């Protein structure tokens, strides 16, 4: 199409019609139109095309009209027979249009409804609502033109016969443009289209529902009130419980902190071992004592056992075996090798833990590093040992005269007999019988001298720290043998009253002999001022108190001055000229080391009695 000419409006507006006309023409003529403008053929062709175009348009219009009519009828039908009432009303509420259903709803013929205000059918109590509905439906000042918002409301209407019914209105305002008016209304201004549906049944149902609901609600509310009160009470209780629990939890946490602090900051190494031998708790002090941290110790069950000195392990195992059986706190002392290899003495206290039902929960133990104390103990023990030995040697020195006498007697006899035997054999003829008798006497006397030396040697010996099961009656006899010549020289008569069925004790023979020597020599010294024949020494053994034996050494001397009795056992306390004052102190130390006790009392008549006890040895406790 050329650009310099304005094309006619219709062909431009309906190009498809022109194309259809051209196609039809071509089919009927069978010619192809000349494309040159201005030629008569072209013009005829153009006219033919126009004619065909008009025919097509006419035909098309007829078809459209028929379609529209059908559509109008359909819509009218749809409109009039819709189950919903349709109204067109003015902004003031006058009815401009109404469909059949609308008239039926209001109970008034359609013709009589026109121009009547719809509000007149609204029940009195709903009039306000109606007016509000109307005003909200109308376009607001300043709002953009075009259909307004759809508004809906429910109203109660009243027919002229007084019957009421409920409807739901849905209205929309169609603001017509200037100069136009809604079809068939003949009025200017906004027109409101309203759809009215009967909702009486629903409202009734709703009302019924509401009523029953109200009843139900009432009941429910009363129940809810009761229940609420109940719940509030429960809540209150719960809240209180929670508060109490919170407090308890806080207390628990505080106490946990407190106990943990106590446990963690104990100087000793504390631990709790489960029945399976796993460490439940181990205080940090273990690092100070063993060099191993708590975490290092928690590895493996036998960690502690591995640390223990091999010589102490058996003792430890025996101790551990009794864990469950012994409900009492027990203690044991053993050595461990620290992480740095140092030897460390541990004093171990433990006690089984039981739950509320008495079930075994493991062992609670406390370990103290007693290396320093142990060392001091050992030093002290060595010192005491040395002192006891010095005291024995001193005693032996005091007894030297009588002991020398005791040895020299058999020696003198031996020498005489030996030289005599030589002479007897040198004679002609030799006196063999007498020489033999002399030699037999030599043998006897040398045995006797040997025994004295043996007893003496024991006194000088360094005590072997060894205890054996002893019959104390025998020890007393041995001691008296040793002191025999001293007693004889001092003209002391010794009487012994020994219990024949005396139970045995566990003790160190030499140490106990030392105590007896000390007590007997003291007794002799105490009696040295007595007249000849008045020196009586009495040694008694007895077993009167169950579990212990008693040994008494009783003299007939001057007795002990009352103020001195208490000081007797103090070291360096002496009443003798040249005495060291160690005898009784050492004797007491020895007896106490044997779990016994030593005491002194004055006799009712004269002299004093020194008495010591020793626990009986039971075979089952080796």
């Amino acid at each position, binding site marked *: 199409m050329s650009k310099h000419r304005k094309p006619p409006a219709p062909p431009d507006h309906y190009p498809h019609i022109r194309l259809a006309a051209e196609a039809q023409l071509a089919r009927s003529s069978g010619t192809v139109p000349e494309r040159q403008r201005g030629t008569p053929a072209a013009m005829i062709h153009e006219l033919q095309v126009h004619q065909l175009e008009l025919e097509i348009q006419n035909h098309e219009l007829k078809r459209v009209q028929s379609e529209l009519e059908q559509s109008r009828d359909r819509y009218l039908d749809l409109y009039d027979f819709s189950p919903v009432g349709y109204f067109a009303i003015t902004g003031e509420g006058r009815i401009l249009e109404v469909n059949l259903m609308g008239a039926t709803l209001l109970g008034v013929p359609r013709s009589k409804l026109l121009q009547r205000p719809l509000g007149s059918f609204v029940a009195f109590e709903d009039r306000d609502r109606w007016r509000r509905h109307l005003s909200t439906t109308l376009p607001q000042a300043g709002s953009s033109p075009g259909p307004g918002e759809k508004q809906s409301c429910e109203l109660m209407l009243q027919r002229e016969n007084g019957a009421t019914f409920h409807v739901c209105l849905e209205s929309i305002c169609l603001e017509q443009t200037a100069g136009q008016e809604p079809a068939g209304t003949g009025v200017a201004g906004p027109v409101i289209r309203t759809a009215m549906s009967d909702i009486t049944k629903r409202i009734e149902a709703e009302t019924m529902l509401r009523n029953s609901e109200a009843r139900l609600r009432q009941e429910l509310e009363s129940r809810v009130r009761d229940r609420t009160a109940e719940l509030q009470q429960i809540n209150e209780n719960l809240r209180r419980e929670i508060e109490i629990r919170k407090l308890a939890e806080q207390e628990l946490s505080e106490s946990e902190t407190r106990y943990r602090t106590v446990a963690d900051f104990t100087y000793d190494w504390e631990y709790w071992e489960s029945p399976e031998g796993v460490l439940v708790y181990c205080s940090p002090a273990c690092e100070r004592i063993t060099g191993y941290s708590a975490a290092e110790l928690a590895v493996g069950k036998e960690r502690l056992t591995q640390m223990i000195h091999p010589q102490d392990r058996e003792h430890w195992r025996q101790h551990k075996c009794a864990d469950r059986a012994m409900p009492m706190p027990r203690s044991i002392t053993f050595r461990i090798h620290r992480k740095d290899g140092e030897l460390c003495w541990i004093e171990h206290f433990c006690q089984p833990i039981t739950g509320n039902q008495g079930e075994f929960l493991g062992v609670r133990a406390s370990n103290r590093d007693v290396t320093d104390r142990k060392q001091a103990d050992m030093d002290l023990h060595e010192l005491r040992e040395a002192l006891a030995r010095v005291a024995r040697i001193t005693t032996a020195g005091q007894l*030297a*005269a*009588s002991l*020398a*006498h*005791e*040895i*020299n*007697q*058999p*020696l*003198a*006899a*031996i*020498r*005489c*007999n030996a*030289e*005599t035997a030589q*002479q*007897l054999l040198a004679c002609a003829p030799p*006196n063999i019988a*007498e020489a033999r*008798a*002399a030699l037999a*006497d030599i043998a*006897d*006397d040398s045995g*006797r001298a040997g025994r004295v030396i043996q007893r003496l040697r024991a006194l000088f010996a360094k005590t072997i720290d060894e205890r054996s099961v002893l019959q104390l009656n025998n020890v007393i006899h041995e001691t008296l043998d040793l002191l025999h010549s001293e007693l*004889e*020289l001092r*003209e002391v008569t010794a009487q012994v009253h020994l219990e024949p069925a005396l139970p045995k004790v566990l003790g160190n023979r030499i140490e106990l002999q030392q105590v007896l020597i000390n007590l007997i020599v003291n007794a002799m010294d105490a009696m040295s001022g007595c007249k000849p024949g008045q020196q009586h020494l009495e040694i008694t053994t007895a077993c009167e108190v169950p579990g212990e034996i008693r040994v008494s050494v009783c003299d007939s001397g001057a007795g002990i001055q009352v103020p001195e009795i208490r000081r007797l056992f103090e070291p360096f306390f002496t009443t003798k000229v040249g005495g060291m004052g160690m005898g009784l102190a050492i004797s007491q130390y020895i007896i106490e080391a044997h779990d016994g006790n030593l005491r002194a009392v004055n006799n009712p008549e004269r002299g004093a009695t020194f008495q010591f006890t020793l626990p009986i040895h039971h075979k089952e406790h080796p």
Partner: protein
Amino acid sequence: MTPETATVFVVDNDPSVRKALARSLLTAGLKVKTFASAREFLDQGPPGSPGCLVLDVRMPGLSGLELQAELNARDIRIPIIFITGHGDIPLSVKAMKGGATDFLTKPFKLGNLIRAIREALQQDEFLQASRAKNAEVQRCLEKLTPREREVLDLVVKGRLNKQIGEELGAAESTIKVHRGRVMNKMQVQSVADLVRDMAGLAPKHRE
């Protein structure tokens, strides 16, 4: 008196020692009598025969030294040889001061003991002899008149007859007669013999 007739008295509380000593001394040809204690020895009274005492120092009851003192007190003269199991100097000094012949520490050589015993027996023999002589002199002294005893004492002091006469207020001739009787009664030939006899007497008898 010979050693063979003398008796060795052994006092020791130790039976082994007593038995051994008895055997040894018998073998050595000595006569032995043993006692278990000093008391036992005293109880038998003064030893009738000459001899010596072998005495243990330390004994229960009466000790050796106490027995020595007791014998001295009773004027029982017998040589004592002390034997001790534990001899110390103060003890031996005390024993020797008490007139002990010897002090032997056990165990002693048998030879030493026997030598000591023989010495003691010789001493005892001499003692016994001088004791007999003294008794003789004593008996002679008892025959003297008081005047004769006065003269004797002055003669023994070496006074001449003239000096004695002046001292006693008598004539020299009278003194000469007294002197003759004294020499006769005392059974001596010379003044030297008289002096020797008198010196042997204990001091109390000399006055």
